[in-house]
């Protein structure tokens, strides 16, 4: 347990050391790339301009980005990103800036393929320049190989950061969904409708149970329609919770029917071994309300 905690805290340094190891980057590689600083600085604006201006079959996403400011920001970040490759010399701050670039790409809608495309265009242009300007052909090859290695590491870390940022964004959206209220509606005397929307994490599942069971008591409800059309995924924990809630409702004296099991959800329920019987399914909402009315009047 302690090991995991300490490795989490030192993630940046460990990540950096590992990354250098994985890509076999030596201090000579780093020196060679740092020496390219002037070359890159002198040419970066042309390269980026050419990348956007060149004609050809590449339908890059910036064409769909109507906002000129937005494109300008992306071009500015690309410039910073490429300069960083030669400027920082992969210093202490390197890992953090990778993270920033990845987060930037995620936020700005720069897809990994667009990013890789731009990167490979940049490398091609710089490599050509290195070959043109070098008298010693062997030396030029070595420089290019060092550049490739460090650029691979640079790209890998940025993409990793991109995927982390994407994950964080998804988690944040899920957290927002989990803040959604759980409404319990009274359809008529003795009948409740509980539409469940969003993600049912454990906090929200508990809230759902409490709200539904309290409402059964407060409204003297004898039938409950639990509609899960708006629930994207039902895993075994959620299914189990729904079964438990419906069983608790029965103990209180209210029968419940479950509606809105989508085809996807039905398939995953079968896979985890949940049978229809336990969930008392009634098809769509309309049928569910009819079933509940029969329960009330029958």
């Amino acid at each position: 347990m302690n090991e995991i905690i300490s490795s989490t805290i030192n993630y940046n340094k460990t990540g950096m050391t590992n990354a250098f190891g994985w890509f076999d980057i030596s201090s000579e590689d780093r020196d060679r790339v740092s020496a390219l600083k002037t070359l890159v600085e002198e040419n970066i604006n042309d390269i980026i301009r050419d990348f956007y201006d060149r004609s050809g079959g590449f339908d890059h996403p910036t064409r769909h980005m109507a906002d000129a400011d937005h494109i300008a920001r992306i071009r500015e970040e690309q410039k910073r990103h490429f300069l960083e490759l030669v400027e920082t010399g992969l210093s202490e701050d390197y890992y953090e800036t990778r993270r920033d670039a990845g987060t930037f790409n995620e936020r700005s809608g720069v897809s990994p393929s667009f990013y890789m495309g731009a990167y490979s265009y940049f490398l091609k242009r710089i490599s050509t320049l290195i070959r043109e300007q070098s008298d010693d052909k062997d030396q030029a090859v070595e420089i290019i190989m060092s550049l490739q290695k460090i650029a691979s590491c640079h790209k890998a870390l940025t993409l990793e950061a991109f995927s982390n940022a994407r994950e964080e964004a998804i988690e944040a959206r899920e957290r927002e969904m989990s803040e959604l209220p759980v409404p319990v509606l009274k359809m008529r005397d003795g009948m409740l409708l509980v539409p469940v929307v969003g993600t049912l994490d454990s906090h929200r599942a508990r809230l759902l149970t409490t709200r539904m069971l309290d409402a059964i008591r407060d409204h003297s409800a004898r039938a409950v329609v639990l509609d899960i059309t708006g629930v994207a995924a039902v895993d075994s924990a959620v299914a189990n919770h729904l079964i438990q809630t419906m069983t608790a409702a029965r103990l209180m004296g209210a029968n419940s029917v479950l509606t809105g099991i989508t085809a996807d959800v039905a398939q995953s329920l079968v896979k985890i071994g949940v049978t229809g019987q336990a969930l008392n399914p009634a098809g769509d909402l309309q049928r569910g309300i009819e079933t509940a009315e029969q329960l009330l009047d029958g």
Partner: protein
Amino acid sequence: MTRQVPILRQKELLIASVQEELSDSEILDLQTRILEEIAHKPTKHVIVDVSLVDVLDSFGTRTLTEIASAVELRGARMAIVGIQPEVAMSMVLLGLTLETVPTALDLDDGIALLKRAS
């Protein structure tokens, strides 16, 4: 025995209103008295009202199930009414799902339920 669960009779209906805290010996005493009542006077329906009870654990649930089975063997039907939300959830989590005993929200529902069933 200082406290006893009050049992009311209304013709062929018995109503036992369980008080807030139910000890094991009190619930065993209730079992004996319900079965005695049934033995002495014709009884069709028995309702055990637990709306005041805030804990129903495995022993309590098992004894209530046993009372219901015994009542059934005497030719009557029993329902449990008024299980509170948090009690219901605790029972489910404990694995006590009262498959064999009908349950209802309150006295009226319980009476209606038993009349429909018979």
